[in-house]
């Protein structure tokens, strides 16, 4: 049936009904969805192999719909993290001892193992609130706030976004701005960049923070994000979006818990420190990392949703480049495949590749002048990652949506051969990562 036929019916029907029912006066209909809450909840389990990080996360996003397409969203996330993270030092052929971030004790990594700091344990509470409403016939605005608290980290943020529809709502332009201020109060204080890892002091150092660490002040960073985007309906079953975003972070951008091994320029082995009786000190020379105090990122993101006889393909690509000289490419593909009246399977593949930050280096070399910036954080290195997952979703007897998904995430990095020295060439210096993501989601009240 052509669109013209579609249009003509309601007028003719109204006339015929009027004839049938006589002159009974009736007001124009007024009906709408009952305003109410709906909820999107998820329980996420994330676990890395080799007893590294594990995270159990509970997420609740609730939405209250009001008349005239206005709504309020409130989000809550609770994270419980345990496990260990690579501290940045290189594996050695002998055991290595490091000072804990608290500065009060040491821990030892066996010979040949990737040094990981296993004192890591944290919980996080994050909340978000957003209000969205139309502004006139073609505009919509969304304003929001966010905050999160961890043991050593707090975040507060504000965001706003405006969009306008054009071309029979086939085109939507949007622009958004987000401001955030994060402050860090690291366990043991924030160490000054590129200074030697301290000795452990088995008592309170008296600086009032209850630990034996650095007495450095709390640190903070400011982040400004700006996004502009266009969403375009191409056809009845194809929708695309392109976003450009700019992000400017300034302030303390170091990871206060990450260090670099200082190695011998010939053998490539970490420089040992002669033990002093009565002093609990690291076994080898390590320096705290130091990153620039500003970072500017540019991202171009594009996404397409394509409907093909019941199946929906969701494909996106992101290119990011920043002034730390990291470039990254991300391709994300999902195919939602209905397997019944109210069930679907959704395979997911994600490919990620990034180049190393310009100041990324696996180690510092003893005797060389100190660089301005250095970090051996694997997340600033050159690596590829792949995610493969499968999601199964279904409608419950009560008309709500449930899903489970299992994903495997694998990172494999490589360090340029010219950055390695001597014995380092014979060993695996990059902490490859394998993780599983298991999520159960439940949406109700819609």
């Amino acid at each position: 049936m052509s669109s013209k036929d579609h249009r003509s019916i309601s007028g003719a029907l109204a006339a015929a009904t009027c004839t049938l029912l006589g002159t009974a006066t009736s007001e124009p209909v007024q009906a709408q969805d009952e305003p109410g809450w709906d909820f999107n909840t998820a329980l996420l389990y994330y676990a890395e192999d080799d007893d590294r990080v594990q995270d159990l996360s509970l997420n609740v996003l609730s939405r209250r719909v009001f008349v005239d397409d206005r709504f309020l969203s409130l989000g809550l996330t609770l994270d419980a993290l345990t496990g260990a993270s690579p501290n940045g030092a290189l594996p050695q052929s002998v055991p290595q001892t490091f000072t804990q971030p608290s500065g009060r004790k040491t821990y030892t990594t066996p010979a040949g193992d990737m040094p990981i700091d296993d004192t890591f344990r944290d919980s996080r509470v994050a909340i978000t609130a957003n209000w969205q409403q139309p502004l006139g016939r073609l505009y919509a605005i969304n304003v929001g706030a966010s905050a999160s608290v961890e043991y050593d980290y707090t975040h507060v943020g504000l965001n706003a976004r405006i969009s306008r529809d054009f071309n029979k709502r086939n085109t939507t332009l949007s622009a958004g701005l987000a401001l955030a201020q994060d402050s860090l109060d690291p366990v043991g204080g924030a160490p000054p960049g590129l200074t030697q890892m301290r000795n452990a002091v088995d008592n309170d150092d008296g600086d009032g923070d209850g630990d034996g660490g650095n007495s450095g002040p709390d640190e903070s960073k400011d982040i400004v994000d700006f996004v502009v985007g266009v969403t375009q309906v191409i056809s009845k079953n194809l929708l695309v979006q392109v976003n450009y975003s700019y992000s400017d972070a300034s302030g303390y951008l170091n990871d206060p818990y990450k260090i670099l091994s200082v190695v011998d320029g010939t053998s490539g082995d970490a420089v040992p420190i002669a033990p002093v009786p009565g002093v609990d000190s690291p076994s080898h020379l390590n320096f705290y990392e130091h990153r620039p105090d500003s970072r500017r990122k540019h991202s171009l993101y594009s996404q397409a949703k394509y409907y093909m006889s019941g199946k929906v393909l969701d494909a996106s690509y992101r290119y990011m480049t920043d002034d730390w000289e990291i470039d990254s490419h991300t391709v994300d593909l999902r195919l939602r495949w209905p397997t019944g009246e109210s069930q679907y399977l959704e395979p997911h593949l994600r490919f990620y590749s990034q180049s190393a930050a310009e100041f990324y280096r696996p180690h510092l070399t003893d005797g060389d002048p100190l660089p301005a910036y250095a970090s051996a954080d694997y997340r600033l290195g050159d690596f590829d990652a792949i995610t493969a997952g499968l999601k199964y979703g279904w409608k419950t007897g009560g008309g709500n949506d449930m899903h489970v998904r299992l994903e495997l995430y694998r990172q494999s990095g490589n360090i340029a051969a010219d950055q390695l020295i001597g014995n380092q060439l014979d060993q695996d210096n990059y902490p490859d990562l394998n993780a599983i993501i298991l999520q159960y989601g439940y949406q109700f009240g819609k």
Partner: protein
Amino acid sequence: MNAARAARGIDVARGDGCWRGQFFAMASPCEVLCEVEDAAEARHLTQLAATEAWRIEDKFSRYVPGNVISRINEAGGSAVSVDTETAQLIDFAATLYEISAGRFDITSGVLRRVWRFDGGGKIPGKAEVAEALQYVGWGKVTWKTPVLRMKKGMEIDFGGIGKEFAVDRAAGLVREASAASCLLNFGGDLVAIRKPVLRDAWKVGIEALESAATDVQKLIDLKVGGLATSGDARRFLMHEGVRYSHILDPRTGWPMRNAPRSITVAADTCTQAGMLSTLAILEGVAAESFLDAQGVRYWANR
């Protein structure tokens, strides 16, 4: 049907901020909610609505011997002259047949002899459907108000319009008889008369999903106007993994495939809402786009 008629009577009880009258008509539970103080007034309005519902049921039900529908269907090919109200309904049906390009057809009831929608998996053979289809088609009927003639074996019925028509008619009588805000519900076909005063809106539950056990309801706020639902999440036929709606396409004799399980439409009158929801189901996969084009508010359940 006879059992139902034997049970004709109304009940009135105090509801939540209103009086609630109940009765049974047209194979459905019916109710009248009125924002009135007085039980007697509520009883009067319910009686008014029930009497009209029963009148229309008796007059237009295809199960009642000797009524106008029986006379038409048993005419055996001869012409039948009908009264004004029946003629108006037939005129309406003829108009709907025209503007829906044959999707709405009051002669399609014959197909129900070969199609049984009991949730089972038996479907009739092609020959059986083709045979029945010979007796279907408003185009084969001669209608010149007020005289109708159709070939022997053809039948008409107002099953697709009767309840909506009845609730609109009853609403007209209630509206004249009282200044109160009332909600009439004839088995899921609703009319709200005047905006309610004691509440924001009438909360109307519509079936949200196939689920015999839980009776899932989605709530709609209805202030004034008509609301009707077509399709039925529970009445369907499964055959070789394909789900057939119980709504038959009179042009093919086969049930609609790829139609929403049910569609609820809000319109100025229940009759309009009912016609739009029925026609939407008969658009199959294009049901939603059809309704988008009509500029009405609707709730589709796929």
